């Protein structure tokens, strides 16, 4: 088990559950941005017969930014997950285990969010108009 120093470095006050939900949160923000941008574009800017044009560009930019954000969170999470030397499942009652566990889950959530964001971004490749 890790010693006292370890415990202090990964103490609860430095860690909470919020990092876990950052990546899915980025997915959600990306999704809503894509939706509202295109909805307003088709309703207010070009009309239902218009081209998506710049709105597709916007989706592409959002997607790149979102993937970058998720990548950063994933990278932080990966470092946490590989914290310490043990590789056993995070199933013990120590702060270090908990730290690695949250890192692991955050990493997985980042991967899922990245796939989901990519799926959403994919739409811009296929849809070119407001029909």
């Amino acid at each position, binding site marked *: 088990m890790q010693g006292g120093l370890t415990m202090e470095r990964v103490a609860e006050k430095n860690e909470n559950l919020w990092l876990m939900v950052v990546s899915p949160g980025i997915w959600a923000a990306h999704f809503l941005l894509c939706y509202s941008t295109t909805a307003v574009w088709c309703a207010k800017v070009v009309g239902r017969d218009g081209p998506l044009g710049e709105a597709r560009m916007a989706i592409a930019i959002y997607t790149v930014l979102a993937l970058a954000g998720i990548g950063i969170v994933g990278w932080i999470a990966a470092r946490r997950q590989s914290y310490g030397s043990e590789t056993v499942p995070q199933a013990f009652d120590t702060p270090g285990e908990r730290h690695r566990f949250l890192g692991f889950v955050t990493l997985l959530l980042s991967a899922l969010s990245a796939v989901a964001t990519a799926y959403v971004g*994919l739409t811009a490749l296929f*849809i070119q*108009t407001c029909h």
Partner: protein
Amino acid sequence: MLVQIIAQNIRRHRIGGLTASQRRLASARSGRICCRRQGRKVGSLVVLGSLLVLAGCSGPLSTLDAAGRGAERIATLFWWLAASAILIWVAVIGLTVYAVRLRPEPHSQRAAKLLIIGGGVALPTLVLAGYLVYGLSLLPDLLQPAPPGSLRIAVTGEQWWWRVRYLAPDGEAVELANELRLPVGEPVEVLLDSPDVIHSFWIPSLAGKLDMIPGRVNRMALEPTKTGVFQGACAEYCGTAHALMRFYVAVEEKEKFARWLARQKQPAQAAAGPLARRGQELFLANGCGACHAIRGTPAEGVIGPDLTHVGGRLSLGAGILPNEADDFLRWMARTEDLKPGVHMPSFGMLPTQHLRALAAYLDGLE
């Protein structure tokens, strides 16, 4: 490949089966429904095996019995999806049966983790991406409006019938109700709206459905590929008689269609025979003209269906009755029974003689 072959086979049989059922229907409906080309004979075993499927996939409302561009592409998508879904189901359940029923020696944690990563993550991600790409690639075409200059038809869903107006390029409209006739192989633009509640316009054999929403106009492109008589239905719950809001669609050769449309533009033909003439008098005397229009007569109501050529239609009461003089009589006498909640009052209080005269008049408006 296998899937396609199976799908092709099933489609062939379907057409055969359809013809049979169509024939039955046709004999019941005084031969209005035209026949389709016969299915080809295939190996007897296969025929036997697919008889059930065959019977299962045909029908006047069938999405799998595609006769329009949209419906055809969606049916193909369905067969691919269904086949892969069955495969996946068998694999997952097979694995579980293996784990629970055969109770193998415990597998290592490593193998278990690999199963999660491979079966639970990698495979689904790829399969789902494939599905998504397939679905998205169909979408632009399915949503593409009909090209400019196409025939335009405005269909209005009302509780519980369909107001249909063929819009000429000069803005003039020919109004009819509860049926569409379309030229085969031509794109058609259908404009959909509703003055009351939300309905949904759906001709399964031709294309997917699209809602009719008060305050909005939705546009749909249809492109029938085969002639025949199909049915449509309201697919959005719209109140008491939602189940009884249907219609017929006849897809015809271009010339036949043009003749039909020219005919629809004409005012109603004069009542022929004393009974029908009596019927016309009764029609006006009983105030039917307050709701119904019969062009060429003083009846100019706009609330209910236009009856100018009602005798020539494929059905009565929005797709729920055949179109014979007797059916007119039944409809007028027992309107509420036949269609609960209907906004037209029953005329059962009229003497049968009067109803018969009215029916003769209306049936004659071909």
